Structure formats: structure tokens, C-alpha cells
């Protein structure tokens, strides 16, 4: 965004790497970047404008706000509306529409909904408001899970019984498998999300690359990182290789952060989870283990569920699976805008539709 963002040297290197991508590309390839942070950065730097025409970047389901199910959002609204509750969430989530309302709307109607920057902030709120029930909306990929696990362990150790979470975390590898095994899959290769791999490593991806004959390259978030990830992916595709490679070695190792992984395993276990616009993916979410059920808001609150219907006009499901581009949607930038989102990908800055809306290039 400014001169300090990228050095002259890294601008030069990025351009050289992209020249190399142009030089070696002979066929049409669809590359999906998993992570919403990467979608955001690609649009922000305008990297897509510098790629050869044959390369299409498909924006993946990696915006945790976007894939959080309608059911989870309705549960969040239902908990937030109950008296004596302080409902806490990362900021993005407040504007995501449920069936009829969002958390901002609930707040305007008197619910105590607060933005926190870390789940530990929610634990502190619970400590300083012992007469209230403080609930944290546990959304996000593997990146947010260690801090949520820490908050649970901290609450347990300090016997903070008025803190709980609404579990809605999701996992990357099962989503990649779901996309690759879909009959209308168009993805030839993945840029894996660097932050997720920093925690989880990339050993889990090796079986996926092999089974689906699909290159996977661990990629970072700066322009040069993304350009390198794209180059390594295209090289594999052109050479008919399908391996897991690491274009983000300054932060990611094959094994990842094992302490964090152990903490995640201690508190959570894989559960089937519904993804908004995609459907239920087996073992693609994290639920609290039996020993920590007393921190599970779903168990603690009475949560009636109404009939849930998405806007019939929104094509978020196809966008999140990479079958349609945001601009294919008839409501894109007309009925559906960041100020009046019909579907979740238009809400978060990481959402594919919102990133497209804010940063669409100029030809």
C-alpha cells in the first residue's frame, strides 16, 4: 500500500518471477489459492493482471467467515440474544448475514455483542464479569485453533466456568479433498495457505497430492511469495509432476509446530462439519473433546433451530468450490455489495466476492 510495503528489490524480483511464469507456461491451468488472505493479497497487488492469459487463479474456500454455516450463525444469534450473555467474536463475523439478521443487528436490538482480537480477551471478559456467561465464536481454520485451545485450557486451569465457545472451526485438508473429488472439479493445482502450514506442517498434503495427482505448493502472502508459489506450481504442472513443495520455508517446515498440534489434539477432535455453500464435509471441523464439553456453548444453551434458507440468488456455493467466479453472479455489485451482502463471500475482506469487488483490476 505504500513505498515501505515492498522494497525496490522485491518489486524487481516479483516481476522477474512473473516473467519466468510467462516464459514457461504453454497450456491453460487453473490454480486455486486456498486462503482468503492470499486472495486478498493477489487482488491488492494486482498479481492476476501480470499472469499469462492461460493461468486462471480460482479463489478457494479459505475465508473462514464465508464458510461458517448458516446453522452456526443462527446459533450465534440465538445465544447472543439470551439475557446475561456477552457474545464475543472476531470482527469480520459481525456482518455476515444469517437467515434474517447479523450480529450487528442483534447488537442494535440490545444483545451484548463484542469484537475481540483474541479468544483470551473473551476469557478475561468472563473473569471480570462473573455474573455473565461469556461465549466466544470459535471460527477460523487451523490458524486460530491454537489460541482457542489455549483459552479453553486457561479457563479450565483457573476454573472460569462462565466461559464457553461455539465451536465452528474448520480444517483445510478435507476441503481440498472435497473439491478434488467433486465431479465438476476444475482445479489443477493448489497454493496451500502458509499460515495454516506454519502450524500444521504440510505432511498431511502429501497423500492428497499423490491420490489426486495434483501439485500443492505451500505459499506465503507477500507479492513475491505468491509469485514464487505460482511459479513452482506452474513448473510442476508443465513438467507433469504432482508433489508437495514449500515456497514459504522461512516460516513453514514439513512437521509444523508440534507443540501447537499437540495442544489442538488435547482439546479438540475432528467432527463432520457443514460448510456454507458447500455442504457437510466429513471430519472437516473441530469439536471439543468429551473432557471439555462443559466449555461447549451448544451443550450449555437451549438452541431451537428454524428452517434455514439461503438467498436463492446467491451463487456463493459455486464460488467457494471454484466453479464460478464472483463476477459470474447476476447479483454481483448490483444487488450484492459489501454494504448489502447477500452471501458470506461478499462480507469479509478475505471473501472472494468482496476482494473482487474492492480490488477488481482495470484493463
Amino acid at each position, binding site marked *: *500500500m*505504500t*513505498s*515501505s*510495503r*515492498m522494497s525496490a528489490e522485491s*518489486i524487481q524480483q*516479483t*516481476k522477474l518471477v512473473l516473467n519466468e511464469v510467462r516464459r514457461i507456461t504453454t497450456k491453460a491451468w487453473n490454480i486455486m489459492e486456498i*486462503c*482468503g*488472505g492470499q486472495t*486478498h493479497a493477489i*487482488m*491488492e*497487488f*494486482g*498479481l492476476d*493482471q*501480470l499472469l499469462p492469459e492461460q493461468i486462471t487463479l480460482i479463489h478457494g474456500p479459505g475465508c*473462514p*467467515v464465508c464458510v461458517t454455516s448458516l446453522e452456526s450463525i443462527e446459533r450465534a444469534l440465538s445465544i447472543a440474544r439470551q439475557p446475561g450473555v456477552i457474545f464475543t467474536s*472476531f*470482527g*469480520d*463475523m*459481525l*456482518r455476515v448475514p444469517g437467515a434474517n439478521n447479523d450480529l*450487528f443487528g442483534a447488537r442494535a436490538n440490545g444483545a451484548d455483542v463484542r*469484537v475481540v*482480537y*483474541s479468544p483470551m480477551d473473551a476469557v478475561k471478559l468472563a473473569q471480570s464479569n462473573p455474573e455473565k456467561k461469556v461465549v466466544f465464536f470459535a*471460527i*477460523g*481454520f487451523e*490458524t*486460530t485453533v491454537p489460541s482457542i485451545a489455549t483459552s479453553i485450557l486457561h479457563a479450565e486451569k483457573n476454573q472460569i466456568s462462565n466461559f464457553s465457545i461455539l465451536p465452528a472451526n474448520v480444517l483445510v485438508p478435507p476441503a481440498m479433498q472435497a473439491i478434488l473429488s467433486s465431479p465438476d472439479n476444475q482445479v489443477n493445482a493448489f497454493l496451500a495457505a502458509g*499460515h495454516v502450514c506454519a502450524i500444521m506442517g504440510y505432511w498431511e498434503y502429501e497423500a492428497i497430492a499423490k491420490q489426486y495427482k495434483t501439485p500443492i505448493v505451500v505459499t506465503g502472502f507477500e*507479492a513475491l511469495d505468491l509469485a514464487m508459489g505460482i511459479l513452482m506450481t506452474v513448473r510442476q504442472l508443465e513438467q507433469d509432476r504432482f508433489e508437495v513443495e514449500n515456497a514459504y520455508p522461512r516460516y513453514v517446515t514439513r512437521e509444523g509446530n508440534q507443540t501447537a498440534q499437540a495442544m489442538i489434539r488435547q482439546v479438540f477432535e475432528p467432527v463432520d462439519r457443514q460448510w456454507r455453500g458447500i455442504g457437510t464435509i466429513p471430519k472437516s471441523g473441530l469439536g471439543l473433546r468429551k473432557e471439555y464439553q462443559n466449555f461447549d456453548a451448544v451443550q450449555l444453551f437451549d438452541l431451537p433451530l428454524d428452517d434455514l434458507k439461503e438467498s436463492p440468488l446467491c451463487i456463493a456455493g459455486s464460488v467457494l468450490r471454484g466453479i464460478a467466479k464472483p463476477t459470474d453472479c447476476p447479483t454481483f455489485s448490483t444487488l450484492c*455489495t*459489501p*454494504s448489502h451482502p447477500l452471501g458470506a463471500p461478499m462480507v*469479509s*475482506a*478475505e471473501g472472494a466476492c468482496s476482494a473482487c*469487488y*474492492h*480490488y*477488481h*483490476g*482495470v484493463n
Partner: protein
Amino acid sequence: MDQNKLSLQGPLCSVPINDHQQIVIGHGAGGNLTHDLIKTVFQKHLGNAILNLGNDAALLSMHAEVPQGMQLVVSTDAHIVSPLFFAGGDIGRLSICGTVNDVSMLGAIPKYMTATFILEEGFLISDLEKILTSMAQACLEADVKIIAADTKVTEKGKSDGIFISTTGFGWVSPKRQISGQNAKPGDLVIVSGPLGNHGIAVAEARGNLGFQSQIRSDVAPLNHMIAGLLESVPEVHVLRDPTRGGLATTLVEIAKQSQVTIKLNEEDILIDQDVRSACDLLGLDPLYMANEGKVIVILPEEFAEKALESLQKHPYGKQARMIGKVESSSEGNLLLKTLLGTTRHLDRLAGEMLPRIC
């Protein structure tokens, strides 16, 4: 028997407390408490010959103050910042500078202000005095006087500490044609310094950063700097302060008002490293963060160097830079040429600025 006798010696009623440390409902009732608060707190800090008359309204002798044929410029602004005190400023300084700057954006010289204070029951009078001291300093710096003021007190919980609404009055010659509708193709865009400091300073004061930084709000009265600019370059087309919504939202407004396209050069936009790091960490974009001491100047290319020189002479404009150009396309677009040479659209801020989660 004696015990039942009433003694009439000594005070039977307790004496009302008059030296409260906190605002009580009675401070807004219009009686002695109100009178004392006005005399001992408000007039002590903000007093001047007009305000101290204590009339229901201020009387201004226009002929003595204003050269004939000048136009009156009025702007009003409400201030509800939380927290009230932050690095580089407080709600008091903000309430003066915000309105002084708005009046200045039409090229006018601000002279007088009015102020309304909504105080919450229980608000510390020592905090009120700190805020008024800060307002008085800002008035002195901007050379404006508060000529009418009002105070109301709400019950505890019905407001949030203190809200301040100010109205500013200034004068401008009808020859001066400065407006958001006047950006013309070929004009250059100048901004008077680095962006986003106020927004991040307030976020830090809220405890949102989770770490300490050196970032201070840029809140400042810009009227003298702007008067200097217009004296040396009267040909300015647009002046606008990029407050809420930041540089991007403000320039989109101007592009739409003037029916032009504005193209910015990313590499020319200055952002302090601390602000950049805080924004990266929180997933915020400094181009959308609020500023309270910056001005956008749009003017014909041939006067741009002279304008830059004038701004850079002033302490608040030392880091002024040219950041972009106005082009002829009636679509009202704001475009950014990125560091990689690609071009993308910038839009208005949608709703509240929300941090991304990862």
C-alpha cells in the same frame, strides 16, 4: 422525658454539597450548581469577553469583524470518541480541530465557535477540566473563540462520559471557489503527510492492538497552514480533510462529486512504519484509517510545486507529497497504481472497519 424534647440548637438540615468531584444531575438543572459549574469550570478555561457576558445568545458586530461582501461559512460536528484520551490528543482537542478544519476546507478563516456538552452523571470534574484545558489550547492555537455554550447532564448510563458538539463560523470571499465538485482533469492531488495515525492511535488507546506503540494521533487545527497555502496559491480547486473512511473514501467522494477519475500512485503515499505494522497485524488498510490533521489539496498541475512548498513550510505539512492525478473520465472512479505497476479500484469503506481474522 428529656430524650423526647426536640432541640432547636445547631443545624437540623444537612448542608447541600456544593463542591462535587463528579458531575451530578443537579449540574444540568439550571440552578446554583449549574451556575457554579459554568463560572468555576467552563468560563475558567474557555472564557472570553463575549462568552462571559452570560447572555442567552452571543451578539456579534459583523461590520467590525468581517470585511464587507464576505460570505459566512458554518460547519457543525459531534464528537463521541472512545476512549476520551489517546496518544496525541483527546476529545477536547478533537472537538475544536474537527470543526476548525471543516470550516477551513471551503477556504474560509474560522473565527468563532459554539459548543454543547452532554455530560453523564458521575463524570469526573477533573477529567472535564483536562478536556477543557485541551480545548482552550486548541482554540488559542487556531485563534478561534467559543462565544456560546450549553451543558446538559444525562442520568448515569444514558450517555458515555462526555459528548461534545461544536459549530464553527468563518468567513470567505465569494471569489474563492473551493469545493469537492471542482476537481478538474489534469489537476494534481497532494496530501499533507502520512496517513492513518489517528485511527491507529485510538485503536491502541482502546487496547485493541495488544501491544504498545509510539503512534500518536495527528489531530491538529489546519487553518493557519491552509490560509498560508491559499495566500501563495489561490488557484486551489479542492480542499478536504480525510477523516472517517480515510484517504480512499474521501477521494472516492470527490471523484464522484466532480465526475472525474482520480489515479493514485501507491509508491508516493506515505505511511509511517508503525502504522503500517499495526495495520498489517490487525488486517486493516491504512488508506481507510481516519486522520484528524491532514488535508487533501487538488489543484492545477502548474501550481502544485508552489503549493507543496507552502505546505512543507508549516509544521503540520512538512511531509506533504504529491500522490496522484485527476483524469478525465466521468465515472467517478478512484484508481491505485500498485507497486507492481498494476492498477486497481479503490472503493468507499463499507460500514464499520473490521479487522480480518487471519
